[in-house]
């Protein structure tokens, strides 16, 4: 709650003031929207308002990290790790659970995932030991993984994290690939920038 600030007193009293403050601390919600949401929660059916409070509690109590891949789940192991049709020897490494969701939504990946919980960012005080990297190395050896697909963000720190991991696994018999980058389908070459074109040329595939 670093950004949480106590605002001026609310005319309806401190409880409403506190609710508005909490809502306004959520991403994408300004003070005006927070005020409107608070008004709604005050005006709606009591059961409806309390169901929201309960849903927040349930999420925080029940959702845990999968011990295998660190995806979020309410079960002992996540749905993907439990699915016997998924190939446990191909693992896609991502920074956050939300990255897993967007790749999963494409429906083209048949392996498992490994969520790092962030990226190596020494300037922000995040080192390799703060991420689920040691667990990944253990998993590669235990599961006999033959391919790691680096799905970290194509940023300097994302690429750096991928490089750190691939160095760690240099002596293991595992193939390391990364997501291709370049030109989006449906766009035109003329408007692609030099960098995208260069990446696309380097990552060209058999036709």
């Amino acid at each position: 709650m670093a950004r949480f600030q106590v605002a001026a007193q609310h005319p309806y009293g401190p409880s409403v003031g506190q609710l508005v403050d909490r809502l306004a601390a959520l991403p994408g919600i300004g003070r005006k929207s927070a005020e409107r949401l608070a008004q709604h929660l005050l005006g709606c059916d009591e059961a409806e308002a309390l169901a929201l409070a309960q849903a927040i509690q349930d999420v925080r109590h029940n959702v845990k990290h999968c011990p295998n891949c660190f995806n979020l789940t309410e079960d002992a192991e996540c749905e993907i790790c439990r699915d016997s049709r998924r190939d446990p020897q191909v693992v896609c490494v991502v920074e956050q659970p939300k990255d897993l969701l967007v790749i999963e939504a494409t429906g083209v990946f048949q392996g498992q995932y490994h969520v790092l919980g962030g990226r190596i960012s020494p300037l922000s005080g995040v080192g390799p030991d703060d991420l689920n990297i040691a667990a990944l190395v253990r998993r590669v050896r235990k599961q006999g993984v033959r391919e790691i697909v680096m799905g970290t963000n194509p940023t300097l720190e994302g690429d750096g994290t991928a490089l750190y991991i691939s160095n760690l696994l240099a002596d293991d018999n595992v193939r390391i690939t990364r997501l291709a980058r370049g030109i989006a389908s449906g766009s035109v070459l003329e408007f692609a920038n030099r960098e995208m074109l260069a990446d696309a040329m380097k990552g060209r595939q058999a036709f």
Partner: protein
Amino acid sequence: MSAEKTDGLILRVTDFSETSRIVVLFTREFGKISALAKGGRRLKGPFESALDLLSNCHVVFLRKSSSGLDLLTEAQLIDRFRPQERDLTCLYAGYYVAELLQNLTEEYDPHPELYQAALEALEDFRQTDQMRRGVLRFELVMLREMGQLPDFETCAACGGELTEGRTFGFWVSQGGLVCPECQREEYSQITIHAGSAAVLRRLSGTGGESWRRLELSPQQYKELKRVTTAAISHVLGRRPKMLSYLP
């Protein structure tokens, strides 16, 4: 608010909201600035994918008259930092450049030569064999631009000439080397050979590119690095974070 146009190196990018980011840049004409990039998390728009750590960009920003963040309105990529592909220390050396610029410079305090030196250092980090020298050169230019470059010519205690063929101490708080006669225990933890002192003079010099012909032995690098680390830590008031990631 007036619109300013310049080139700048990105030192830090933090997510501010669902779509916006706060970007800290070290610009050629204005020194360090902090600006809000609305829509900076989208791929399309006025920033494309330029807003990455250590990218060098043409930027346009609106300068706030009162305190508060400037507003970044455009960023066009000139060059991305591409460290030697298989060498993490080259990447970390780049992070170190960002750390020093971020922590040792003030907002709206321009240092065009430091900006240039940063770009050259990042260029050097594309090759492993130029990385160490590039780090030292950048540290020394940094110290010079901050007005904190130690004296490598004369003894910091007696003012005497530092002659060849000897070993000198480094007296951090007095900002310079000390001759053998003046050395006392309290400032003799760091000692360097006369040859290393000569290298320090050339590496920190303003006279063109002659420092690029210097080849450092591992022993020399170690000696010089102790001197620059002590000097930088003295100015910063602590050891830089990235040093533990560097050789």
